[in-house]
């Protein structure tokens, strides 16, 4: 149990190791927790950048807007100023006109009419002025005279007679448009008065504050120019100017309509709001134009100074856009577009990273699952191996007990029960062994043996296993081994037998009629034939069919159609013919044997139910049967073929099959065996394993069989016994052969010793008894001294036919098929009465062989256990060995001190002080030293120095588990025998290491 726990533990450790080793992750995977944050940061950055872009573009737009505003504002201001200037200049000119023609001319050249006409006609020059008028300076003293002269009184602005003042400025000339102000005293109006005073002081045009003009509701300013009576001195003082002042020319600017007009002429009028202010008093700007309340876009304002020519007054034009700056759609779209693209990019990156993480996750998961699955697989195999092993031990106990139980006195039902139980147990053991095999193969633990064995006898054994069943079913079971196949090959007989057993077992299981034929050929031989066959296949051998007696029959063993027609007579004949040729010139074979290996092609052909096409590709998968009904009808687990496949592959071959449903299957596999080099050894082995009597050598036989394949098979068996065999296709032919007494058949100098007749041929020939009569005739005619024995070959025979056969003269014997060389030999012995003694000797052959191996050998048995020692010694002595004992490793070392005379040593493993392993190691050390000395040093004793010291040491152990066995081999042992000894075990072990030794002739 401890071992198991450990093994599971080791599996777990392995799993962890693998996990650790495989955990190689990408950068993305390491930082997968950051991915979402990174995405957010990315998005945020996108927002900021797109904001910046928007701002940048918007600032540009604003700048342009501002420039446009500034341009427009300045343009307006300049135009206004220019227009204004032009008007002012004209008024100036008017003033000069008045002074020139009114004052410097006497009498005055201007009167109201002239002035009115002139101004009216030149009003296009002063589009900004609603009208001009001239007011004369009148001091109070001159008022009366003035009123008299003009015929009206001076009135105030309110159109009342002016009160008394120092000075008056009544309008004397006026343009028609403003004729209503004639005779009004300009000095009476606040603004005008100030204006007049300032104008005569400066001598320049001056402007009033904006105010509501008389006669209109528009805002306006009044422009006043002084008119001097005399020419002024350069740089006149204020007093001089006042003194020289004669009157004032004034004009009213209707600023509102003025600006309105002006703006109307310009483009973009609608877009901007223009205000004009008088900012002489900076803290209280007066509106000259525009609405008092602030509307439009307050955010962007441009101020342009306007100089109307009056240095005292300051004016300003303020422009702003009517509407707020529209959203900068382009910037917005650009920003949005950028953001969208940026986000998409981010999302794609995120998606990719996410995908990477997911894939990596999946990958890791898969990796883990894979490792787990593999571990589970290993664990499963281990478990299977262990459990199967564990089950086998008690099962063997059960079977043993059942066998003992069957030996006791049981009533027949009890016996039946016990036998059933035993059968079941055997089936179970078989299954367990198969599972164990499979597990072993999977775990790579199966090792193949390499021992020489007789292929033919193995095949005979296998076929004999199934002979009962096949006979019962009425199937012909036949074996044919090519003569070119060597007698003895080196390989693993057990496994070879397992494969054959499996294939034949399957065939027997699935075949209800027809035949099963096992053929063994040399691979290169059959391959060459197949090639030539394919060439020939263009013109199928018609003659074959013609030659057949049966109407609808195929040229196979039983006449049933086989799946692989390569095995039909057509091919077979070539093989057989080839062999005949080769066996004649057997020298060729000898040279062939020089090469180390021989590859055999083994075919198992049946005429069973075949494998359905859909199931053909999973035939070799373990536990896969064709369908569930297969296991119901035929039993089995479906593991056999997979094991066979594994075994074949282990043996360096290939297995494949051809199958046709309802026709049959042909499984064929190739397998490579070693050739056996030593002739002496071959002889030895043959005498042991394939002990066929030689008493029949040279006897002649005639075989009557209509089917060539079957005849070839039968002949093969007879040939093994040394019989010379001739084939006749019918009884008539056979009789003819006998009757002619060798004159026509050169093979026979006399009558044959026996005639073997196939049951089919006998029945179909129709002349029952005729043969015998003919033969008797022959004898009577003196052709022959001894009648040939008649032997009937039959697969199955019923009582009726049996009687008939006896009546027809087959009293001698009936050989039931399947044929086996040994069985045929036994029958022939019975019939001919020869070779009995030889056969009797066969019984003891196993132990005699062992005896021959061990006889005279000096063997050391090392065991601390006195009883064990005695038993081992006794067992070995029984086979003629000369046994010496040692009770400990130390004593053994002393006894094996070189040089010694021992041929082998059996060594117990578990001993106190020095165990078997240690003792072996020391012995090997001793030997290698001695070897080195003798090889390296000068040759002292001639032959003796050439001897390689290596005593075969066999472990004796009670527990034959694999580990112990390995340990044995590792420390230099040659093999092991299980304790307590039994004959077979001992034989196997001894045969293995004595095989290299030359066998002493006894």
């Amino acid at each position, binding site marked *: 149990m401890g071992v198991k726990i450990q093994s599971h533990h080791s599996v777990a450790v392995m799993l962890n190791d693998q996990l650790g080793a495989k955990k190689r992750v990408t950068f993305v995977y390491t930082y997968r927790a950051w991915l979402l944050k990174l995405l957010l940061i990315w998005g945020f950055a996108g927002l900021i950048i797109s904001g910046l872009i928007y701002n940048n573009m918007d600032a540009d737009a604003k700048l342009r807007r501002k420039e446009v505003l500034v341009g427009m504002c300045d343009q307006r201001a300049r135009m206004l100023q220019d227009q204004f200037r032009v008007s002012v200049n004209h008024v100036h000119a008017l003033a000069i006109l008045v002074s020139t023609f009114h004052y410097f001319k006497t009498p005055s050249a201007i009167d109201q009419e002239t002035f009115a006409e002139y101004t009216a006609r030149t009003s296009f020059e002063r589009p900004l002025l609603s009208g001009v008028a001239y007011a004369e300076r009148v001091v109070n003293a001159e008022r009366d005279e003035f009123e008299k002269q003009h015929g009206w009184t001076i009135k105030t602005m309110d159109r009342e007679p002016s009160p008394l003042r120092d000075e008056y400025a009544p309008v004397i000339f006026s343009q028609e448009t403003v004729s209503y102000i004639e005779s009004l005293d300009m000095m009476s109006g606040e603004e005008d008065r100030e204006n007049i005073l300032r104008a005569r002081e400066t001598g320049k045009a001056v402007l009033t504050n904006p105010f509501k003009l008389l006669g209109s509701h528009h805002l306006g300013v009044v422009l006043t120019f002084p008119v001097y009576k005399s020419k002024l001195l350069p740089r006149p003082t204020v007093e001089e100017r006042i003194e020289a002042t004669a009157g004032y020319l004034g004009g009213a600017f209707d600023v509102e309509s003025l600006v309105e007009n002006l703006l109307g002429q310009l483009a973009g009028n609608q877009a901007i709001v223009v205000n004009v202010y008088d900012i002489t008093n900076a803290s209280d700007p007066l509106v000259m134009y525009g609405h008092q309340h602030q509307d439009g876009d307050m955010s962007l304002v441009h101020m342009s100074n306007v100089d109307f020519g009056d240095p005292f007054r300051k004016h300003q034009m303020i422009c702003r856009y009517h509407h707020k700056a529209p959203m900068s759609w382009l910037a917005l779209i650009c920003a949005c577009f950028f953001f969208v693209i940026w986000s998409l990019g981010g999302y794609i990156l995120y998606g990719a990273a996410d995908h990477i993480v997911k894939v990596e996750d999946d990958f890791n998961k898969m990796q883990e699952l894979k490792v787990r699955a593999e571990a589970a697989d290993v664990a499963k195999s281990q478990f299977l191996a262990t459990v199967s092993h564990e089950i086998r031990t008690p099962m063997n106990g059960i079977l043993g007990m059942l066998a003992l139980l069957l030996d006791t006195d049981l009533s027949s039902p009890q016996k039946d029960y016990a036998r059933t139980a035993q059968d079941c147990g055997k089936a179970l053991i078989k299954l367990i062994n198969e599972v164990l095999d499979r597990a072993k193969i999977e775990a790579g633990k199966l090792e193949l043996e390499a021992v020489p064995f007789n292929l033919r006898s193995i095949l005979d054994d296998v076929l004999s296993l199934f002979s009962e069943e096949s006979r019962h079913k009425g199937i012909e079971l036949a074996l044919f081994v090519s003569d070119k196949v060597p007698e003895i090959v080196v390989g693993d007989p057990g496994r070879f037998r397992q494969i054959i057993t499996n294939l034949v077992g399957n065939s027997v299981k699935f075949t209800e009629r027809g035949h099963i034929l096992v053929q063994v050929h040399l691979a290169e031989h059959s391959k060459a034939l197949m090639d030539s066959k394919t060439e020939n296949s263009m013109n199928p051998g018609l003659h074959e069919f013609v030659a057949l007696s049966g109407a609808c029959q195929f040229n196979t063993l039983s006449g049933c159609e086989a799946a692989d027609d390569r095995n039909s007579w057509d091919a077979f004949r070539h093989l057989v013919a080839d062999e005949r040729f080769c066996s004649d010139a057997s020298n060729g074979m000898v040279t062939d044997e020089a090469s180390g290996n021989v590859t055999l092609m083994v075919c198992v052909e049946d005429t069973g139910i075949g494998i359905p096409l859909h199931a053909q590709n999973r035939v070799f998968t373990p536990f896969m049967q064709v369908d569930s009904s297969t296991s119901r009808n035929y039993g089995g687990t479906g593991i056999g073929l997979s094991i066979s496949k594994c075994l074949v592959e282990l043996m360096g071959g290939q297995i494949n099959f051809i199958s046709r449903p309802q026709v049959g299957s042909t499984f064929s596999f190739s397998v490579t065996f070693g050739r056996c080099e030593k002739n002496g050894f071959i002889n030895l082995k043959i005498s042991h394993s394939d002990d066929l009597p030689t008493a029949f050598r040279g006897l002649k036989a005639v075989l009557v069989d209509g089917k060539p394949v079957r005849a070839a098979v039968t002949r093969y068996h007879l040939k093994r016994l040394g019989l010379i065999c001739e084939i006749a296709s019918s009884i008539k032919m056979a009789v003819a052969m006998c009757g002619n007494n060798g004159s026509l058949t050169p093979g026979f100098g006399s009558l044959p010793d026996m005639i073997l007749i196939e049951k089919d041929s006998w029945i179909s020939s129709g002349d029952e008894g005729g043969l015998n009569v003919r033969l008797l005739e022959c004898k009577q005619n003196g052709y022959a001294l001894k009648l040939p024995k008649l032997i009937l070959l039959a697969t199955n025979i019923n009582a009726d036919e049996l009687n008939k056969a006896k009546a027809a003269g087959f009293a001698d014997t009936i050989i039931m098929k399947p044929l086996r060389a040994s069985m045929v030999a036994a029958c022939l012995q019975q019939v001919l009465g020869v070779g009995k003694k030889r056969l009797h000797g066969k019984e003891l052959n196993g132990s005699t062989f062992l005896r021959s191996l061990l006889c005279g050998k000096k063997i050391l048995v090392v065991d601390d256990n006195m009883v064990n020692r*005695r038993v081992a010694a*006794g067992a070995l002595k*029984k086979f003629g060995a000369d046994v010496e004992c040692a009770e400990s490793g130390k004593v053994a070392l002393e006894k094996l001190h070189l040089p010694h005379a021992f041929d082998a040593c059996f060594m117990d493993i578990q001993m106190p002080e020095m165990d078997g392993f240690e003792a072996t190691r020391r012995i090997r050390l001793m030997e290698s030293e001695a070897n080195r000395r003798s090889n390296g040093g000068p040759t002292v004793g001639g032959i003796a120095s050439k001897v390689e010291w290596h005593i075969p040491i066999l472990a004796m152990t*009670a527990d034959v588990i694999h580990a112990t066995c390995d340990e044995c081999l590792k420390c230099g042992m040659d093999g092991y025998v299980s*304790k307590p000894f039994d004959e077979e075990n001992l034989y196997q072990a001894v045969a293995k290491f004595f095989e290299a030794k030359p066998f002493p002739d006894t």
Partner: protein
Amino acid sequence: MAYVGQLQRKFVEYTKSLYREGIVDKQFTQLHNLQDESNPDFAEEVVTLFFTDSQRLLNELTNALEQQDVDFNTVDAYVHQFKGSSSSVGAQRVKDLCISFRTLCEQQNKELCLRCLQQVKLEYASFKSKLESLFQLEKQIVEAGGTIPTID
């Protein structure tokens, strides 16, 4: 001659009962098969050897287990020896007991070991007496001039 036949039958019955009860196993058969004309008393010789050896081992075991501090390694070594020799002569039940004895040694359970030793002693005694009577029977057959039937 009838007497011999009777003895032989008895012998066969007796051996069969030994197998049936699991007192001896296949190895005993092997042992028996090892004796032949040249070595007629081989089985008896070995079994006697086994008896002497076992007596010694059992004494050692008893001593070892009576100690205050039981050295289970020593005990295990003795039991291993005992197991080996009993399996060599085919004393199946003794051998089986030895196997469980060894697991008890591994567990170092003194009490159970003592109990197991007791059982081993009992089983051994039974084996000894049965085998002795078997050999007695053999001798009788030989004295009566018969041959010992082969055991299978």
